[in-house]
């Protein structure tokens, strides 16, 4: 009997992307550039996060026409974003047969109480997290892949670093807990003790965990890989740089060779200007605080 949409298949696709770079693209031309540069997948969206910041207003799911056009020109998986809690946008993306749905804080949240019940969908979901509790709540809801939230659209990697370090530290603490402490911790973070025990046993999240939010250079990507991320999402960092093709290739090569400084030095040469960054303290809107 053929089984489809199982947890194994949902998590499995993310496993195939490990060690790779997923790039934000806003049109088919960018999608082709991303694929040629070695992206393992593209995230189709109408505006990259830095433009969403600049333009203000409500940010929503992209036009299905634009998503279809991108699906038509690349052979790698295509992901797309929905607003937190907006399960109808997710139904629409499922009808489009996108390969992964990102329930994303980069868009304006649609529900202040509930994230999407992701287990009801056939398409796998990726969700952002700033700490272990948040990651496990998303996994309990059916997320098959996790990414750090970082602070999207800033070109500033500091928040992504904070999030992966927090998750790592919390997993390390968890390893020392006894049965009673695990129960208490599971209650605190509002997830089933079985899931917490699984993380303790594995010493890592039970799904693939990518870095995201503020990655602007090959060195940023390698930093997050050295901190233990399984791969990297790059949003504004590529197409807001002065030489997108070169930057895209360099970040791909850096992600693959994250532990080889001599290769990192070579690929970091002559990339022109990286995207202009923002200081986190001066931001009016902190996207990472969306979702809970």
């Amino acid at each position, binding site marked *: *009997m*053929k*089984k*489809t*949409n*199982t947890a*194994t*298949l949902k998590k*499995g*696709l993310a*496993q*195939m*992307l*490990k*060690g*790779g770079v997923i790039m934000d693209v806003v049109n088919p031309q960018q999608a082709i550039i991303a*694929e*040629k540069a*070695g*992206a*393992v*997948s593209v995230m189709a969206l109408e505006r990259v996060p830095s433009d969403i910041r600049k333009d203000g207003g409500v940010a929503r799911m992209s036009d299905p026409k634009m998503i279809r056009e991108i699906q038509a020109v690349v*052979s*790698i*998986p295509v992901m797309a974003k929905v607003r937190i809690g907006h399960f109808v946008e997710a139904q629409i993306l*499922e009808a489009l*047969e*996108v*390969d*992964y749905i990102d329930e994303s804080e980069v868009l304006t949240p649609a529900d202040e109480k509930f994230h999407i019940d992701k287990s009801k969908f*056939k*398409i*796998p979901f990726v969700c952002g997290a700033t700490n272990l509790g948040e990651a496990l709540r998303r996994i309990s809801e059916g997320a098959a892949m996790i990414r750090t939230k970082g602070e999207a659209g800033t070109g500033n990697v500091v928040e992504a670093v904070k999030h992966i370090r927090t998750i790592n530290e919390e997993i390390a603490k968890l390893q020392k807990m006894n049965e009673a402490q695990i129960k208490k911790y599971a209650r605190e973070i509002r997830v089933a003790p079985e899931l917490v025990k699984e993380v303790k046993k594995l010493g890592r999240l039970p799904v693939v965990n990518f870095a995201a939010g503020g990655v602007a250079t090959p060195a940023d990507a390698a930093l997050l890989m050295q901190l233990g991320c399984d*791969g990297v999402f790059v949003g504004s960092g590529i197409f807001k740089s002065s030489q997108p093709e070169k930057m895209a290739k360099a970040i*791909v*090569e850096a*992600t*693959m*060779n994250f532990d080889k400084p001599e290769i990192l030095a070579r690929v970091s040469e002559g990339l022109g200007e990286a995207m202009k960054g923002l200081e986190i303290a001066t931001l009016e809107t902190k996207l990472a605080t969306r979702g809970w």
Partner: protein
Amino acid sequence: MAGKRIGILAIHGSVVEHAESLRRLNFTPVEIRAAKDLETVYGLILPGGESTTIGDLAQQFGLREAIVNFAKSGKTIYGTCAGLILLARYGLLDVKIDRNAYGRQIHSFEVDLEIPALGKKSFNGIFIRAPKILSAAKSVEILAQFEDSPILVKQGNIWGGSFHPELTDDLRIHKLIFGGK
């Protein structure tokens, strides 16, 4: 004692999963990122991932030629999913392939496979955006089929499969190909 060294092309994809399968069979997995890494291994796995990406990067890093030479030296190579596509593209496996013929992620599937070479017990075949083998030359041995298409094939020292045994706990395919405890 650590066992024989088997390489895994480590551009991206299911590298750690194959490494775990090999370790459990008492092999020493070796990540291959440059041509010289191939000098010390006696077999090679091309893992699952995105074939467009892996193919382009392998070419760029001079790995394509190294893999072809490795095959010509008679050493065993096993490609899964994207790896199968590369073997066909490099002319190492005489099969015709339709990439993503089984459809997008929503059509990915698991199914119990009958693989005579593994005995009676079925094998959990995990197909993720899998490539389809449309046809195979006469010199290609077909070890298993699903819905009339070959899914596990062998041509001399080269093995290819469209599914992911590295995502299961079942070591029988790795064992069939590389031996081990």
